[in-house]
């Protein structure tokens, strides 16, 4: 049996490891765009702040792939899929045949049209290295601007704060995470940023960059700001064209059943790119976090070896911005909720939003209210209604 995995992140590598456990003689190949063995993207901020050395971000060593007899092909992008003749063509000009294929390519960062030295993205280890180099080179002349209102923006704010770099944040929405948060929760985050000395400009879009080869400033709809490092966190945008061309059904990601199968036989998907039927919340979800990617990498293996298993997980993601804890659990899309209950207030320093659909809880956003996490997770799993939840 030949298993081909496109994507060397946590979803793909976990799947490779599980496949090897289940089938000692199978051929297992991973195609990875990056040049590194598996590392933890979640550890990158720890590395950048000097809390762990660079070598600690690696979760696998080169020797591990050899020991496991897993072929890791690095620096190669999949460019073409032939689902009938069952092969993937790589950017290296090679054709990679498969019996079962896993698409676990994650997402590409959405980028600006312009580029200057000083523009920073935050997805890979190379991005982290580049950011550190900019900070080191610029010293106390560094001026930080963050463009975005989500998880990556929070990481940049914390990093600039850590390095003592003056920080301006601009985002297009009226507050952070406009797709999930109501205005009161957004206000709590804005208040935390203001208290922390961050200059915040809401409802503001980036228009252009200034500087010759090095970034000197930005022009926005609200005015011009000086900037030597611009941290861009405006979402991810997976490359789906090669899959669409092959007849794979795509939406914002790769469409998949609850068993993580695509519409093309013997082609499966897992991780950030999977837009899967979630049996717990009864809706198609696409989730970009570590827990989801790792768990899907494990579950999809069962479906790939013929033990069809549905993916069942209430996944969550936690971050903090300037010490304010923020946790997302389950399905937190405002547009898909029928009711959103709010507990707490800006004055209390903590707000929880509970998302309901069809009379039961499907998600929660907890800001400064960590202890709501366990009961909300349980309520989602057990399909309880808000009235049975007791949060005070």
């Amino acid at each position, binding site marked *: 049996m030949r298993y081909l995995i496109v994507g060397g992140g*946590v979803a793909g590598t976990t799947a490779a490891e599980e496949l090897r456990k289940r089938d000692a003689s199978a051929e297992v190949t991973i195609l990875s765009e990056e040049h590194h063995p598996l590392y*933890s*993207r*979640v*550890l990158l901020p*720890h590395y950048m702040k000097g*809390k*762990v050395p660079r070598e*600690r971000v690696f*979760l696998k060593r080169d020797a591990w792939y050899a020991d496991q007899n897993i072929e890791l092909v690095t620096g190669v992008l999949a460019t073409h899929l032939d689902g009938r003749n069952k092969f993937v063509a790589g950017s290296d000009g090679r054709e990679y045949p498969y019996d079962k294929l896993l698409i676990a390519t994650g997402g590409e960062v959405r980028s600006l049209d312009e580029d200057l030295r000083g523009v920073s993205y935050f997805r890979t280890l190379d991005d982290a290295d580049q950011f550190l180099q900019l900070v080191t080179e610029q010293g106390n002349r560094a001026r930080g601007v963050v463009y975005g209102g989500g998880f990556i923006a929070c990481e940049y704010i914390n990093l600039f704060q850590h390095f003592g770099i003056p920080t301006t944040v601009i985002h297009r929405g009226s507050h952070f995470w406009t797709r999930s948060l109501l205005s009161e929760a957004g206000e709590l985050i804005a208040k935390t940023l203001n208290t922390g000395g961050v200059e915040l400009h809401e409802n503001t879009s980036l228009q252009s960059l200034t500087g010759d080869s090095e970034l000197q400033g930005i022009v926005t709809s609200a005015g011009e700001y000086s900037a030597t490092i611009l941290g861009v966190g405006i979402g991810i945008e997976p490359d789906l064209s090669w899959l669409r061309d092959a007849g794979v059904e795509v939406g914002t990601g790769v469409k998949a059943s609850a068993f993580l199968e695509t519409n093309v036989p013997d082609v499966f998907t897992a991780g950030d790119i999977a837009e899967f039927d979630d049996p717990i919340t009864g809706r198609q979800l696409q989730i970009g*976090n*570590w*827990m989801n990617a*790792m*768990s899907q990498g494990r579950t999809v293996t069962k479906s790939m070896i013929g033990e069809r298993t549905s993916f069942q*997980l209430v996944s*969550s*993601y*936690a*971050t*903090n911005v300037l010490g304010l*804890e923020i*946790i997302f659990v389950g399905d937190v899309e405002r547009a898909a909720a029928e009711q959103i209950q709010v507990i707490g207030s800006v004055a209390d320093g903590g707000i929880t939003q509970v998302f309901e659909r069809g009379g039961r809880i499907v998600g929660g956003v907890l800001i400064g209210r*960590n*202890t709501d*996490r*366990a009961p909300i997770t349980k309520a989602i799993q057990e399909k309880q209604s808000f009235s049975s939840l007791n949060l005070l």
Partner: protein
Amino acid sequence: MPRIRVMVDPDLCIGAASCVTIAPETFQLNEENKAWVFDHGQEPEGHTYERWLEVTDDEKENIILAAQSCPTLAIFIFDEAGTQLFPET
């Protein structure tokens, strides 16, 4: 039954909760969103980030799986002789 020492580094823990999902009898998040170590769902000497556990081989394997799932490698596991089982050094 194997005896292991399980330790969470609260400086590294970010409350991703992968460990809680895989081994809820051993890990639960506290109000600071960091994982306390439990002994089969109990806390005999109160809250702690570190404890000795007597576990079956299956439980040990599952706790190591939970440690492997941690995106910040904040969980350390040692055997009775003090050898670090995870992360592999």
